[in-house]
C-alpha cells in the first residue's frame, strides 16, 4: 500500500470499499492488496491527468467490484479459519463460565443452536459488509445495519435460552474428567487463536468474564457484595484493556 500517494477522498473511499467488498467475499488477502495497490497507482496517475474516477471504474462501482471479484479465487481455508475462530470463540465463553460452576452438561438443542447462531452471524456480517461497500448507503443507514447485525446473535441467544427451556432434547452430561479435558482443549484453543490473530483480546475477555465470579467466591464477602463487584471488574477490565491497547497502537502508529 502506497500510503504516501495523494488521492482524492472519493478514490480513497472507493479503494477502502473495494478492499472490504473483496474481504467479505472471502478472497486471499495478499491478492486483495495486490489489486488495490495496482488500482491505487492507476487512480493516482489518472487524477494527476485530471480524469474523473468514473473514467476508471465506470458509472457503477458495484458492478466494477463484482467484475474484479469474479476473477479472484475464493480463499476457503482462511474462511474456515475465521469461521471456526468465531464459533469456537463463542463456545469458549460458555464453556469457561459453566466450568466454574461445576461439570458441563449441554442439551443437543444448545449445541446445535450455538453452531447455527455462529453460522447466521457470519453470514450476516459477510452480506452486510458486502452491501455497505458496494451500495455505499448513508452513514445513518450503515450504523443501523451494523447495530442490527450486532444485536442479531444476542437476540438469537436469548431465543435459544427460551427454546431450551420449553423444548426437551436429550442432554449430554460430561463427567468431571471429561469436563476438565474440554476445558483444557478450550484453553489451548484460545491461546492458539490469540497467537494466530496476534491479539490477546479473546483471552482477556474470557478471563474477565469468568475469573471474577470464581475468585470472589473464594473470598469471605457476602453473596450480594460479590454480585455487585463482579460486573464492575469485568467491564472495568475490558474497558481498561481497550483503552490501553488503543493508546498503545497510537504510540506505535506515530
Amino acid at each position, binding site marked *: 500500500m502506497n500510503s504516501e*500517494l495523494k488521492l482524492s477522498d472519493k478514490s480513497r473511499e472507493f479503494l477502502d470499499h473495494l478492499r472490504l467488498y473483496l474481504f467479505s467475499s472471502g478472497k486471499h488477502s495478499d491478492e486483495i492488496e495486490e489489486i488495490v*495497490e*495496482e*488500482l491505487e497507482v*492507476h487512480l493516482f496517475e489518472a487524477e494527476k491527468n485530471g480524469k474523473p474516477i468514473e*473514467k476508471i*471504474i*465506470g458509472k457503477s462501482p458495484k458492478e*466494477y467490484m463484482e467484475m474484479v471479484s*469474479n476473477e479472484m479465487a475464493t480463499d476457503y481455508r482462511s474462511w474456515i479459519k475465521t469461521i471456526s475462530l468465531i464459533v469456537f470463540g463463542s463456545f469458549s465463553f460458555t464453556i469457561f463460565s459453566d466450568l466454574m460452576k461445576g461439570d458441563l452438561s449441554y442439551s443437543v438443542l444448545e449445541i446445535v443452536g450455538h453452531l447455527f447462531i455462529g453460522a447466521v452471524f457470519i453470514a450476516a456480517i459477510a452480506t452486510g459488509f458486502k452491501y455497505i461497500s458496494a451500495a455505499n448507503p448513508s452513514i445513518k443507514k450503515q450504523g443501523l445495519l451494523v447495530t442490527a447485525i450486532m444485536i442479531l446473535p444476542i437476540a438469537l441467544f436469548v431465543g435459544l435460552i427460551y427454546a431450551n427451556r420449553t423444548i426437551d432434547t436429550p442432554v449430554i452430561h460430561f463427567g468431571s474428567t471429561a469436563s476438565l479435558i474440554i476445558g483444557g482443549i478450550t484453553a489451548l484453543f484460545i491461546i492458539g487463536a490469540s497467537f494466530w490473530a496476534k491479539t490477546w483480546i479473546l483471552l482477556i475477555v474470557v478471563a474477565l468474564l469468568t475469573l471474577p465470579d470464581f475468585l470472589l467466591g473464594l473470598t469471605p464477602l457476602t453473596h450480594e457484595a460479590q454480585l455487585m463487584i463482579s460486573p464492575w471488574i469485568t467491564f472495568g477490565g475490558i474497558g481498561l484493556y481497550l483503552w490501553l491497547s488503543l493508546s498503545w497502537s497510537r504510540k506505535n502508529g506515530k
Partner: protein
Amino acid sequence: MLVIITLVLQGIGEVKENLSTTQMLKGILDGCLLAIIKDKEVYGYELAEKLESYGFHSFSEGTIYPLLMRMQKEELVTTTLKKSTAGPRRKYYSLTPKGEAELEMFIERWNYLQTNVNRVLRHESNSEHPKGDETDE
C-alpha cells in the same frame, strides 16, 4: 442485417465454438492487450492510455484489470513490480510463450472474422436489391 449476423456467427463458430456477443468483444479487448504487451513491457495505466490513443475512448480504464488478472491466471502474462521515479510501485506486464501463441491465434481468428465481415458488407451494400424490412432505423 440478419444475414450478416448469421454469417459472422457461423464464421466464429468455425474457428471456435459459438460465442456470445459480449464474449466476442471481451476476446477482442484481450487480443488488443496481448498485442500491446508483446510490443513492450507495460504497466496498467500505460496500457489504458495506449488503448485510448488507438481510439478506444468509451471504455472504463479499470476494466483492463480483471482481464489482466485472468490472463495472468491463464499464464499468458507475467508481472514484475518496479519502483518508479515518481514513487509508487508499478506492476509491469510481459508476455509468456503461451501468451505469444494466444496472440497468434487471436490474429488468425480476427483476420478470418474481418475478411468474412468485409466480404458480407461489400456484397450487401453494393448490390441494389430491394430490401423487404427496413422498418427499423
